[in-house]
């Protein structure tokens, strides 16, 4: 189950104007696992994601992705190393068609160079046409077939969630960090998202899921990291954490009573 460490977070601290959001937080995500990141509101989960993905810079500590230090790197640079994250609300490219949203996920950066786009337009078109089969398979898989030629802005909330997964699947990242993928999602679609997460792992991606829906976490994840007050208070399989008093006090307590 546990491969080599893929993401190593070492003692990061981040304060926002006097408020300590993340404090001396350390955790290790191993390759090939699906890890749930849980904790009460304000525990610092989303801050940790922002720090790891380059949207914020920690005051101290280090984050190594695939053994390379990422602190100080821009989000797009970190992304090109193989890390893709989502946000609490789906962020589709609204005026692009659904299929183009997925194509951008699939496309490589050097294909988008201004000069190549001008000089070898035909070659690029052939290249993209060659990917049509893969793209339409993704469309079918994520139930976006009927809307694939529509503007993404018109999708329903659930479809936007699925589009997010189709985009990630097209991009084939090494590590995917999902920030509350189940927010505002009905149970049936929720199961589809659970399947999408397992599929990501099958495709070779390591997955970190931030989620409040604990039954979902239990079903989907191999391992759980619990955060409270900006730091990690426990890490391990879900079953073991039930008996951990700190975890129960911080979070699960509400559930058991």
């Amino acid at each position: 189950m546990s491969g080599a460490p893929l993401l190593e977070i070492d003692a990061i601290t981040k304060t926002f104007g006097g408020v300590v959001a993340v404090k001396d937080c350390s955790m290790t995500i191993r390759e090939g696992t699906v890890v749930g990141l849980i904790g009460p509101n304000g525990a610092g989960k989303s801050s940790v994601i922002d720090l790891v993905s380059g949207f914020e810079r920690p005051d101290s500590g280090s984050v190594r992705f695939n053994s390379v230090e990422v602190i100080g790197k821009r989000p797009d640079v970190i992304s090109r190393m193989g890390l893709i994250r989502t946000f609490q609300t789906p962020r589709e490219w609204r005026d692009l068609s659904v299929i183009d949203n997925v194509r951008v996920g699939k496309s490589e950066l050097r294909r988008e160079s201004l000069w190549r786009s001008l000089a070898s337009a035909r070659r690029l078109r052939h290249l993209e046409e060659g990917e049509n089969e893969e793209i339409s398979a993704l469309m079918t898989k994520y139930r976006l077939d009927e809307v694939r030629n529509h503007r993404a802005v018109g999708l329903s909330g659930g479809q936007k969630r699925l589009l997010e997964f189709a985009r990630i699947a097209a991009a084939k990242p090494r590590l995917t960090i999902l920030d509350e993928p189940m927010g505002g999602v009905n149970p049936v679609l929720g199961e589809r998202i659970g399947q999408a997460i397992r599929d990501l792992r099958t495709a070779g991606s390591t997955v970190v899921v931030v989620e409040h829906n604990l039954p979902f976490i239990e079903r989907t994840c191999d391992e759980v990291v619990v955060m409270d007050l900006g730091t990690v208070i426990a890490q391990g399989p879900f079953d073991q954490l039930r008996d951990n008093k700190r975890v129960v006090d911080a979070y699960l307590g509400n559930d058991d009573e």
Partner: protein
Amino acid sequence: MLQYWTAILTEASIFAILALGIDMIWGWAGDFDLSAYAYFALGVYMTMVLTIGKAKSPVEYVLGWHLPYLLAIAVAVVVVIAFASIIGAIALRSLREVYFSITTFGAVWAIYYFVENYTPLFNGYNGVYGLFDPMGYGMSYAAYHYVFLAFCAVTLFGVYLLVQRLSRSPFGRMVRAVRDDEKAASVYGRNVFGTKYRTYLFGAALAGLAGGLFAAYIGAFSPLDWKPTEIFVLYAAILVGGRGNPKGVVLGSFIVYVGFVEMTRYIPSPAARPELGPALRQILIGVLIIVMLRFRPSGIIPERLGTDGTEGRRSWRYLFARSSAPPTSVLAWHEARPSMETVVPAEPRPEAGT
């Protein structure tokens, strides 16, 4: 009359090139830039001072070379790109939306008053002149105008093909993705600033090119001949034609320049109020913008949606199909949207969680 039309079409072709440049910055990249007219003006000034030779006192300006016209345009475009790279670097680094616009607006006015008041640069308020017949080589006056119209039209066509190719390329798609959501774009490895910056410089280069053509068209250029606010006429053209669609932008430029700016010249002004005609023209352009935004916000030919080709949407059809809404109309497609059942078909529910 024929000469009059030749002049109008020449002018419209030149401004269509400028509009294509502005549309790249605003339509594709989403940055409402207000300094593009400065790049246009700089293109005009540079082309002038590179071709008309040494200044004779009391006229003064920089350079004063005698380059061939086409080479001068090329040099002018390079200068414009260098200049835009400074303004772009400042304005695009972290400013967006209205803050970006205000910054560029401040820049263009600063440039305008600098050019007007610092005489050694481009002869200040009186401007530079003397670029006549740069390609005519002794052709007759009338014949030269036709040749120059053809030259502008061919240039416009070439620029259109270039921009259209770019628009449909992976590059154009990526620029629009950055426009629609910068955070998501950077999550998928796109350099937001770099993308916007490159698009900005390309658009500025087109503005400089349009300026190079305009220099030969107008022959003399001073701060009386341009005002930073004239850019809104170009935004009107882009809105009418279709923001983000090169075909629409060219169409919109011709509609606004030929249809509105020039046709309204025929509106009679009473002898006592000669300013009425031009004022009315401004009002009409304002009305045009409002009407378009109300009834067809995405323009006559809306931005092309990248499809897989199965639906065969041709933007031309929307020109004539009055009943069918353009694909941008969110309302129209909400009705056609599949229901939740088609998205998540009923199937046995999975085992309940704990």
